[in-house]
């Protein structure tokens, strides 16, 4: 049974077929964790690539120091360096792009955290949107490193660059806290958001496991009119994953409320019978256009 999500994170999207689909926005924490995972993976991939290229270079028989101009070996080194620069560029820029364009719409880090990207509103997620949000990521994330690196290279004030980088980074890292949908700048530009990609397993249909004929209990309409949909769904949850004391407590509560005792060790049969008949009762009302939200509703 899915946990109830706070209303502030629930969003509804109307599909082109006109059906409202509920979405739950990913928490900022989950997104940050996914990002860290991705960065760790990218870092590992970069290191592995670098090591592999170094190993190949070593295999060809070239150290870093002796470079004979124009010799085939020097050309080989050049080729390797070019491959390295391109590989680093691709890791940095294409990692997110490649995975988010896939059918899961999630990088490995997001997949682990169970979140994915989606288009805001009713529009479909487009390739352009994914590209846009990831181009902007480059600025949000990697610019501070460029600041500091640039200051080192130019030999200017590294402290100052460090502060500038920190402010820059904070500006973008805090951006998601200042809007309702937890959008980062890239999401704003691309028209996307990040939602939970929850997976639920489908349980048995409850009325199959207990055919009506075998129900030992028959409840009167007056006894069924006590509860509403909210209680019904709570009862469903208890029946689906609760056993032992929870069942007994709930059965006692219902039995007291409707004033009908049940035999010992028959909590489950009692609850199942009550659940099915209550559901039948409420669903009949539903078909006639009468909803009873909970026990307080008229």
């Amino acid at each position, binding site marked *: *049974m*899915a946990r109830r999500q706070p209303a502030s994170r629930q969003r509804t999207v109307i*599909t082109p*077929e*006109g*059906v409202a*689909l509920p979405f739950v926005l990913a928490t900022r924490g989950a997104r940050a964790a996914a990002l860290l995972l991705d960065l760790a993976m990218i870092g590992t991939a970069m290191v592995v690539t670098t090591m592999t290229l170094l190993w190949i270079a070593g295999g060809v028989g070239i150290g870093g120091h002796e470079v004979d101009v124009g010799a085939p070996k*020097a050309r080989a080194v*050049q080729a390797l360096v*070019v491959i390295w*620069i391109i590989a680093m*560029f691709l890791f940095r820029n294409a990692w997110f792009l*490649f995975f988010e*364009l896939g*059918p*899961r*719409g999630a990088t490995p880090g997001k997949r682990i955290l169970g979140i*994915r990207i989606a288009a805001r509103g009713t529009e*479909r*997620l*487009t*390739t*352009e*949107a*994914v590209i*846009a*949000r990831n*181009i*902007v990521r*480059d*600025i949000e994330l990697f*610019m501070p490193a*460029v600041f500091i690196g640039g200051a080192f290279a*130019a*030999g200017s004030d590294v402290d100052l660059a460090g502060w500038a980088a920190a402010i820059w980074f904070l500006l973008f890292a805090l951006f998601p806290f200042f809007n309702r949908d937890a959008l980062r*700048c890239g999401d*704003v*530009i*691309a*028209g*996307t958001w990040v939602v939970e990609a*929850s*997976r*639920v*397993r*489908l*349980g048995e*249909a409850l*009325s*199959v496991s*207990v055919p009506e004929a075998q129900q030992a209990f028959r409840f009167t309409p007056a006894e069924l009119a006590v509860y509403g*949909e909210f209680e*019904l*769904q709570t009862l*469903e949850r208890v029946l689906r994953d609760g056993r032992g004391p929870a069942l007994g407590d709930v059965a006692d509560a219902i039995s007291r409320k409707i004033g009908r005792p049940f035999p010992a060790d028959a909590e489950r049969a009692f609850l199942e019978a009550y659940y*099915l008949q209550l*559901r*039948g009762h409420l*669903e009949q009302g539903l*078909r006639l256009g009468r909803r009873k939200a909970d026990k307080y509703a008229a």
Partner: protein
Amino acid sequence: MSEPAATLLGRLGGWFSPAASAAIAAAEDAALRSDRFRLEREGEWKRLEAIVERIERGRLRGISDEDLLALPALYRTAVSSLAVARETSLDAETLAWLEGLTRRAWFIVYGPRAGLGDWLLRFFGGGWGASVRALGSDLLIALALMVAGTVAGWLLVASDPDWYYALMPGGMTDARVPGASRAVLMGTLFGQQNQTGLGIFAAALFSNNAQVSILAFALGFAFGLPSALLLIHNTTMLGALLWLYHGQGLTIEIIGWLSVHGTTELYAILLAGASGLHIGRAMAFPGEASVLDAASAAGRRTAQVMVGVVLMLIVAGLLEGFARQLINNTAGRLIVGTFMLVFWTGYFFIWRGNAKTETRV
């Protein structure tokens, strides 16, 4: 009750395996009407789930053609089942599961239509040019800013040569400083064809230039102002450099030296800056739409341009690393540069690709 079940069997019997007919037999046993509704359709839902699962795993090849063709229909079945179930069923778990399934199928049915490969095909076949044209007047604004930057750079350095050091980044002021002799300046323009490491040079230049233009683009969300500043700042350097070589009568030579890759590179920076301005203007003057909608519409339009910019910068990097050092005379360099300029302009503004891509952008 047996009659509807019989027609149901007739309807679904051809579709499903014995397992499905077992489910239908179970449906007859179910006490609640909403559970019967569910059990009758569960076969189709499960089939949809299996297809979705496979697509999500990236095993497109393992999916039969019938399944792929059935996907949209199954998706619509699930959507309408959901709509009906919401009005008739109080089985929270089934509803939640059905919502989850519909959501996952929705992502696939209405997901990114093209993979990276297909998208690139459409992109080169006219999508790129169309997205550049869509920038409209922002291109002219960016061009005006770049010209202004160049002129400003020239005038600043002409009025006080000390500006030169302020404008040029550290690495560039090796031999190219105010007061350098004509011979030294000539040396920086010609006679480097024996230089090694051209490939590395090109790759590094590309990486650097790509970051600059991505910056010009991404800063657009601050209402385009940083994009404009970046355009001006980068072209003042150009102006200063032109002034320096002009002083020694090397104007044509420096233009040739720059034009080999410069026409491509400056074009790319122009497009990146125009994209940034486009987003900035969309946010500052969203018109009828909300600011967020206007920004995202502009962002998606310009993302295509930015992919193109990165590609142009690869070309520019190659030209800068190889062609400029290998072609050692001004006429040849000018020809290459002009050719690239004409090529890009023609590709963006004259060649329209096929009409289909045109309507999509």
